[in-house]
């Protein structure tokens, strides 16, 4: 950290008994004050900033997994190759479908619906629903993957229910694998939206909704004209965080489908992994990773703008 710059900032808090210390003590004091940041900063620089910089570097090389003395700089070749690669375009589409279905539509809407219903429900039901939905969220990612694998398999629970209802059964993991993994992500991630929206709805003053009720506004109109505008900031942050989380889902899809059959559920993280390790093209895989990182950073910046006034 740049302790020197820090020294320039005036000490704000009077220092009690030693408060009369002259200004030249300022540099030393600023240094010792900044010192506790050091371990965290070192860790972050070495293990987070380092890899990001390295990522931006090898994305422009032809680095391979084995058998090559040193990688050479290839400019934008990896990116050009990506946009000509049907498998990459496929992965981009699937990532979009996965994100829109499971994060924007699924987790967000279901989370809001659950939170709104919970406001009206009786206490035992509220507790039960909270426990079940949150358990799905707390479970390790891989376990969640197995549970939903069992649910969607041809011999699984979903088809058993469909048969019981005399509806045609499906081999879900084969016919619509992206839908199956999207549902899995909804199952796993809805609790977060539910908690965010429960907190947001709890902050709306009762008088406002009651006043609207007295004025004769029905449930939907109250939701649309009063509740939603009042929680719009929470909606924004929730959408951003859901999307960022969904963009980086790997384990869930890996366990359920390995990206298959073929590559019909291969989202960008799985595509990146396959290129880097199964096809040994680290440079190419990293170029895809860099694109993912840039998209994630843009979302992250939007998220920060939403939070801006609160910092």
């Amino acid at each position, binding site marked *: 950290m740049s302790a020197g710059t820090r020294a320039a900032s005036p000490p704000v808090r009077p220092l009690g*008994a030693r408060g009369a210390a002259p200004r030249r003590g300022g540099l030393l004091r600023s240094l010792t004050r900044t010192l506790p940041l050091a371990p965290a900063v070192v860790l972050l620089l070495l*293990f987070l900033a380092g890899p990001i910089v390295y990522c931006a570097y090898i994305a422009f090389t032809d680095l391979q997994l084995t058998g090559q003395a040193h990688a050479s700089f290839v400019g934008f070749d990896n990116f050009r190759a990506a946009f000509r690669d049907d498998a990459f375009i496929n992965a981009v589409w699937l990532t979009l479908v996965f994100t829109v279905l499971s994060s924007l539509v699924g987790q967000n809407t279901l989370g809001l619906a659950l939170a709104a219903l919970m406001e009206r429900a009786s206490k035992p039901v509220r507790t039960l629903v909270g426990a079940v939905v949150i358990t799905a969220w707390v479970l390790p990612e891989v376990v969640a993957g197995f549970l939903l694998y*069992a649910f969607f398999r041809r011999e699984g629970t979903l088809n058993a229910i469909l048969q019981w209802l005399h509806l045609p059964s499906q081999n879900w993991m084969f016919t619509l694998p992206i839908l199956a993994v999207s549902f899995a992500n909804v199952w796993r991630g809805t609790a*977060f939206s539910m908690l965010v929206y429960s907190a947001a709805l709890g902050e709306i003053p009762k008088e406002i909704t009651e006043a609207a009720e007295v004025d004769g506004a029905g449930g939907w109109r109250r939701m649309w004209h009063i509740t939603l505008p009042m929680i719009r900031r929470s909606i924004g942050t929730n959408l951003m965080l859901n999307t960022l989380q969904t963009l980086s889902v790997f*384990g869930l899809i890996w366990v359920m489908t390995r990206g298959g059959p073929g590559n019909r559920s291969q989202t960008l993280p799985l595509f990146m992994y396959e290129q880097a390790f199964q096809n040994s093209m680290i440079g190419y895989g990293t170029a895809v990773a860099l694109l993912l990182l840039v998209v994630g950073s843009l979302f992250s910046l939007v998220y920060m703008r939403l939070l801006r006034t609160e910092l």
Partner: protein
Amino acid sequence: MAVLTHRATPRSRRSGRRLAADAGLLVVAAAFALPLAWVILSSLDAHADLRVKMPDGVTLSNFDAVLKPDITFTPLLNSLILCGGGTALTVVCAALAAYPLSRFRSRLNRPFLLTILFATSLPITAIMVPVYALFVQVNLIDTTQGTVFFFAASQLPFAIWLMKNFMDGVPKELEEAAWTDGASSLQSLVRIVLPLMGPGVAVVTVFSFVMMWGNFFVPFMLLLTPDQMPASVSINEFFGNRGTVVYGQLAAFSVIYSTPVILLYVLVARRLGGGFALGGAVKG
């Protein structure tokens, strides 16, 4: 009569609405509960398959079969070492870093916190390929310490953010008294501030631990030797051996592996009144 029904309407409408809400929620809960029911029932069923069904007779044979050193104990111990080490490192670094950010004003605080906030939402998945390549070059690949360092670094931004917000809630007056008595920053942090924010430290600790315990991709990429693998990766072995998958044992292992994080969550959530204080964390 007419007056009576008119009076009864709002209340009956409200209770009708509650009934509808209850019914809707119970349907959703049932859908969410089905996969959970599968794992619990299958773990107790000697002939488990992929469907939710009541076992013919409850048996613990699945648990007996998986409770062996190479299947359960070693991976769980590996998980504990990785996640315990990573969490300890995260919490110590976050507490130290949060102190100057919360207590002293500096023109660098805001940019630093903005960077931290930005880093909390970066998709860590995206940098795993370069991290792998980097770890190969510096000989950290397939080492426990390398994975612990990376775990800590990836969890640190959120941990610092949370810790700083909790620390802001501790009033400064007590510390100022200690300062007058000549206590150093470190002393007042350890003796005064941290004990006063016990629940906050608990949340950061449990949250970091739960995130690492469930993480699959990081150890999957950074560790190679099967003996070193944590439970999140070793669980895939149940599928690895080409033969028929013993679903009952897979379910039993899943139950064992998931129990610690669920217990930890309950412990913290109960003390903080649900929500994991995450709602507050998200809003800054």
